């Protein structure tokens, strides 16, 4: 047995609650041997560290970074499927897929997530209302198990472990490779309609009545607006542009795709530059910049899907105290609870830089999958905001009483009791997990903090 590397301090994207772990770069060829070196605190694979809390941390244990190359991805253009390594990022995969006329089935707001992470968090995107979460589109998973063997999983082969791995936060094993469905696209542009909503009722009604006409839909809420403006929003909906919708220079290179990081935040930002004032100003400008109504605007994939990725390491803007993301689900029919949460947040003055509202469609069979029919609200708030923790604990009650839950990939504050209430199938997942990993090889800080593993 070789020696483990010394402890490295790791955090999630929100840069809170650090822990130290032995960080080891691995490849699919040597990962089974490396995982065997895990101390009693177990092993975990970490992708690009975009989970906001402690999902990709394993204090005192082994954390492995799985290398992956999109160049080895195998695209089956006839079946609309790609087979790709678990360590490959959506960023790298899109560079291969888009020029060949395909697009990932689901993308979150950043392209810097790995395929393994996308499966472990069962990520969702702007197309959830019609096309579901990432897990809906996974055809097959090659999973490294605790005993060092590799299992082939699919919705028909060992389906219980397949669905426990989707949304399983990396605690069932390591995704070595996956085959996923991909969408054919004619161009690398998106065609986008934008509408302003003057209050919460207006935005909810517009989304209920019109989302189904669009493939992608999401609303940005100005949480700094109060009173009769409460819930004022910008609704942005669209689809991939077809070849005949292109105009101007896009016509010359219909599938050109070259996403860039325009500027990066330096490693040390001594204080948070994201504060009440800057957030208020940003939100006001953002709202006013949006047109009352604009149709068929052509945008690039990075502009439409990954606008924040244009600023590298933007999480550093929050300074050393970091920030939390609060993402919750409230089922349809419980709009009053959603309203109470938004009212409470708006009146507290808790400043959220980016607040997003999205309608979810059907759930998938995964016991720990987050999305289910209902509304999901997402906020980013500086962790140093006074009284924030108490307020979030109170909001948890509103959400859970309404039958809602928390998105674990974003969570960094809630409790095991809240997870148990929000995910009634937790025990079922634990039974499958414990059968696949009886000695607790796979562990994480999130798993311990939220009582997923014991």
């Amino acid at each position, binding site marked *: 047995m070789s020696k483990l590397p*010394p*402890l*490295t*301090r*790791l955090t999630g994207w*929100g840069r*809170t*609650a*650090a*822990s*130290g*772990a032995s960080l080891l770069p691995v490849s699919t060829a040597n990962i089974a041997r490396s995982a065997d070196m895990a101390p009693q*605190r177990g092993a975990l694979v970490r992708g690009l560290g975009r989970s906001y*809390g*402690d999902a990709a941390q*394993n*204090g*005192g*244990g082994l954390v492995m970074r799985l290398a992956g190359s999109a160049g080895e991805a195998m695209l089956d253009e006839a079946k609309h499927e790609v087979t790709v390594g678990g360590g490959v990022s959506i960023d790298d995969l899109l560079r291969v897929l888009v020029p060949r006329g395909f697009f990932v089935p689901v993308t979150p707001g950043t392209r810097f997530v790995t395929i393994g992470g996308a499966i472990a968090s069962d990520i969702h995107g702007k197309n959830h209302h019609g096309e579901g979460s990432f897990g809906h589109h996974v055809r097959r998973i090659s999973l490294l198990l605790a005993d060092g063997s590799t299992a082939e999983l699919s919705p028909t082969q060992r389906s219980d472990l397949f669905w426990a791995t989707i949304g399983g936060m990396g605690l069932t094993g390591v995704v070595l490779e996956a085959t996923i469905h991909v969408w054919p696209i004619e161009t690398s542009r998106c065609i986008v309609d934008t509408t302003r909503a003057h209050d919460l009722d207006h935005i909810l009604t517009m989304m209920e009545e019109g989302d189904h006409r669009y493939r992608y839909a999401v609303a940005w809420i100005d949480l700094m607006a109060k009173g009769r403006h409460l819930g004022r929003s910008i609704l942005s909906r669209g689809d991939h542009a077809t070849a005949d919708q292109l105009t101007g220079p896009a016509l010359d290179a219909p599938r050109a795709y070259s996403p860039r990081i325009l500027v990066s935040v330096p490693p040390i930002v001594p204080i948070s530059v994201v504060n009440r004032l800057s957030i208020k100003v940003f939100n006001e400008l953002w709202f006013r910049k949006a047109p009352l109504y604009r149709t068929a605007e052509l945008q690039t994939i990075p502009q439409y899907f990954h606008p924040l990725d244009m600023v590298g390491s933007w999480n550093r803007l929050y300074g*050393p*105290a*970091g920030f*939390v993301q609060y993402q919750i689900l409230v089922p349809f029919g419980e709009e009053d609870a959603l309203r109470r949460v938004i009212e409470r947040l708006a009146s507290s003055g808790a400043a959220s830089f980016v607040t997003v509202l999205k309608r979810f469609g059907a759930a998938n069979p995964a016991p720990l999958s987050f999305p289910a029919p209902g509304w999901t609200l997402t906020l980013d708030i500086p*962790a140093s905001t006074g009284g*924030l*923790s*108490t307020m979030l*604990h109170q909001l948890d009650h509103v959400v859970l009483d309404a039958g809602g839950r928390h998105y674990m990939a974003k969570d*960094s*504050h*809630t*409790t*095991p*009791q809240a997870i148990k209430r929000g995910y009634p199938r937790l025990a079922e997942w634990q039974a499958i997990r414990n059968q696949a990993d009886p000695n607790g090889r796979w562990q994480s*800080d*999130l798993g*311990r*903090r939220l009582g997923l593993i014991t």
Partner: protein
Amino acid sequence: MQNAFGEPQTILLLGGTSDIGLAIVGQLVSPTCRSIVLACRNPDAAKAHVDTLGSDGITVTAVAFDAEAYGTHAELIADVVAKVGDLDVVVMAFGVLGEQSDYDNDPVAAAKAVSINYTGSVSVGIAVAAQLRQQGHGRLVVLSSVAGERVRKTNFVYGSSKAGLDGFAQGLGDALEGTGAKVLIVRPGFVHSAMTHGMKAAPFATTPDKVGEAAVAGLRRGRRTVWAPGILRYVFILLRHVPGPIFRRLPLG
């Protein structure tokens, strides 16, 4: 695991009946908290605090802890971990003050005070640090004192034990750098508490609750040292450099 706001799920208080220790623990209680362990010489003495701190979802237990029984410390920490899991926050708040005039004529009593305040802290502090390093996270809060910052003639046995403790905690904090575990040193001035009952208060006297607030704020902000009240940081920058002949004449109590 503590959450993003530094709210711990588990707390161990070494010195389970210490006013300052209990004030810190009381302010760390949140909906995140699930286990509190009060470790003190006589667990029965902590009974009232077990009842006060306990509530829905929080289990409070009292366990026996003898600062001078060095041989038991590693086992004590292992037992607590077996009971509650990872230690998120450990508060080291035990110690004795005593009267300098008594120590002047009793070398055994003086050595015993140092053995509790300093040697006992080193022993249990090492055991705690080993656990925090092994789990890759956790905070150790060490109750130091301004008495150790520049030791005065009126309480130099106590002051020197705190000076040693403070140095130990600084070195330990540096040694844990990068492991995910951290040490917070709390340096209070004169605190109105059971320990100082009947004594004449020194300037900038404070209360256990105020020290608790300063310690919890320090934890939230990831500080290495906090002073209570904060002004003492600057007072002692001056006092540290006052020449001996003048320092000896200062009416510092």
